[in-house]
């Protein structure tokens, strides 16, 4: 079962919100219903799976803050349903809603929202106090949460004595101490300066790797969205315009707005080897003789081939001159003349990690899966074209013929994408 589900959720602020929703459903735009109210969220539907990090991204005024506040009932939808697990937040009583918030869902705020007159540990223990947990247990659990976020030793300080990044760690510790499965993060790192923000993102990823919470993260920073999110929902003017993984959004933007948005993204961090690799032109299976290897290269019109086992486990690279020499010498084993001078990369490696291997050799970089099997190759020209900012979406560049770089890109079959 999904941890969170929104079904055709609308939120309109104003006196005639019901009428506004009816007109929106009939196809009216946000501007057309201005007289009836302000539509903050229009027809939002999505599901968040258990343990998923779901990022909602949009500029200010796109409705993302309103949306996240409907996920813990701080706002009620004007129309539509919000399900938190099996609880329907659109019809729940105020009392049940409070109980639900104590048990199931916690929140991290943009400006930290700490109690200034309470110490760090009292702040972290705040949700536990609301759960009526006794003092010693409260202190123990809050202490654990503080340790998780790296604030051990700061328990008895006041928030005012901490830097912004540390205060938000307290905010995060407070949400973790609550022990809920679902964590809502509203622009949690937006008020921090870039270096601290990066640090916090890494820490969140580390924590998430061990804790496996269901996280809904709101941000206006696409790089942050792509870095943190398993999936991303892009919002504009109250509507969700696209939901997908960062790669889907980068490589297949739903409209010009999204395309424009992703134009500035540092693709090397987001795109992985899998999204730009192409099929290797010449693959030789161990057991083949030099003659077979040479035929393979001749047919593909390349001067080198990858040697793999029958299950495609990568063994290395065969160069045409080595194979020719072996044939003259009458050797049958290709394994002995295989070169190891090309570093393979993992299929989920971000492009930024592929530049170095690619620079070492004129040959396409082989891409392997978790079992060491060859799944594709990345010619250097493909890598460069994927980066090109005037190609939107960037990886269309793969369709371009790869043979305009002489001699080096010769293991690729032109025009074939993975």
């Amino acid at each position, binding site marked *: 079962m999904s941890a969170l589900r929104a079904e055709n959720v609308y939120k309109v602020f104003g006196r005639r919100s019901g009428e506004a929703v009816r007109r929106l459903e009939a196809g009216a735009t946000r501007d057309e219903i201005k007289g009836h109210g302000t539509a903050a969220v229009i027809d939002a539907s999505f599901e968040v799976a258990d343990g998923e990090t779901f990022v909602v991204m949009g500029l200010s005024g796109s409705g993302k803050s309103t949306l996240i506040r409907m996920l813990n009932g701080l706002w009620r939808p004007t129309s539509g349903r919000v399900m938190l697990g099996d609880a329907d937040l659109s019809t729940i009583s105020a009392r049940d809603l409070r109980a*639900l918030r104590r048990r199931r869902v916690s929140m991290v705020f*943009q400006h930290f929202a700490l109690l200034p007159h309470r110490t760090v540990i009292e702040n972290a223990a705040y949700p536990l106090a*609301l759960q009526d947990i006794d003092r010693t247990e409260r202190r123990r659990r809050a202490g654990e949460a503080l340790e998780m976020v790296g604030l051990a030793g700061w328990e008895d300080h006041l928030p005012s004595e901490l830097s912004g990044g540390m205060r938000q760690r307290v905010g995060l510790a407070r949400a973790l101490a609550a022990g809920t499965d679902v964590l809502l993060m509203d622009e949690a790192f937006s008020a921090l300066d870039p270096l601290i923000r990066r640090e916090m993102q890494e820490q969140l990823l580390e924590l998430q790797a061990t804790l496996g919470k269901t996280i809904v993260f709101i941000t206006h920073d696409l790089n942050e969205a792509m870095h943190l999110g398993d999936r991303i929902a892009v919002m504009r003017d109250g509507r969700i315009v696209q939901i997908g993984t960062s790669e889907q959004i980068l490589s297949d933007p739903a409209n010009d707005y999204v395309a424009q948005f992703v134009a500035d993204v540092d693709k090397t961090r987001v795109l992985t080897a899998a999204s730009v690799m192409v099929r290797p032109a010449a693959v030789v299976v161990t057991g083949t003789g030099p003659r077979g290897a040479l035929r393979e290269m001749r047919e593909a019109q390349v001067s080198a081939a990858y040697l793999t086992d029958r299950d495609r486990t990568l063994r290395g690279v065969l160069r045409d001159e080595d194979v020719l020499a072996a044939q003259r010498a009458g050797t049958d084993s290709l394994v002995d003349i295989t070169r190891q001078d090309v570093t393979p990369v993992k299929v989920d490696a971000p492009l930024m990690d592929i530049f170095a291997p690619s620079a070492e050799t004129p040959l396409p970089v082989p891409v392997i899966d978790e079992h060491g099997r060859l799944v594709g190759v990345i010619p250097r020209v493909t890598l460069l074209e994927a980066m090109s900012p005037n190609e939107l979406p960037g990886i269309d560049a793969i369709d371009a013929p790869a043979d305009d770089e002489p001699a080096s890109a010769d293991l690729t079959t032109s025009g074939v994408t993975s």
Partner: protein
Amino acid sequence: MSGPIGLSMADLGYRLPLGDAVETGVEWLTSTFAGLFDVIKVVLVSSFDGLEYVLSAPPMWLVALVLAVLAYVAKGWRLGVGALIGFAVVQGVDQWDNAMTTLALVLVASVIALAIGIPLGIWTARNDRVSAAVRPVLDFMQTMPAFVYLIPVVIIFLAGVVPGIVATIIFALAPGVRFTELGIRQVDPEVVEAGHAFGSTPGRILRQIQLPLAQPTIMAGINQVIMLALSMVVIAGMVGAGGLGLDVVSALSRVNVALGFEAGLSVVILAIYLDRITSALADRSPVARALRATAA
């Protein structure tokens, strides 16, 4: 000038009977709620008498010393010493007993004004409609000339301490309400939201978040209530509330500059003492300190 513009309503033989209506209303109140007013009277008289006894019965130096120690604890030795010197001056012009009567009046009126004002302020902060309804009433209470309150109050309670206290409560109520509302509304909405998000009840949010964070502003309101009460208590001397006000009023009617100055100076000393103590207490609250550190 000729024409209708120069005519007053009276010339037309008509006058808006607002004053008469209020007078009728007051008479109706007096007869209908006589029992209630008697209860109020008993409560006010007994609490005032009790407090005045506590302040006046012990020797002057003992009361002055206790008040000075309070000042020392609240702020520091300078205020303590200053308070002692001030009280010595009050005693020196033979106004000590009057000053204690006035202090008792101020304290009783302030406590009641705050007991009404702070809860009302909380209510107005949480409910926009109540706020909109209460605001003009507060404006009315604050700007209506203070003497005017005395008239109906005297009709209801007759002359003496009680009408003085009641008029003072009405006059001093407004800042208690306003500052409480302002303080609560100024609390960072995100922090209040955090309370909701973690499943706190509205009552707990009020006690654990809103009131503590509004405390510095509410303390400023308390300070204002006490200051206004002190200024009104002097005016209440006119209806025989006693204390320094009585001397000020009689100095005025007899054009006695010396007595007027001595009683007036005693009021000033009392005012400074109360103001410094309450503002010192506002500064010393943990929230005020934490907020100062945050702002720094």
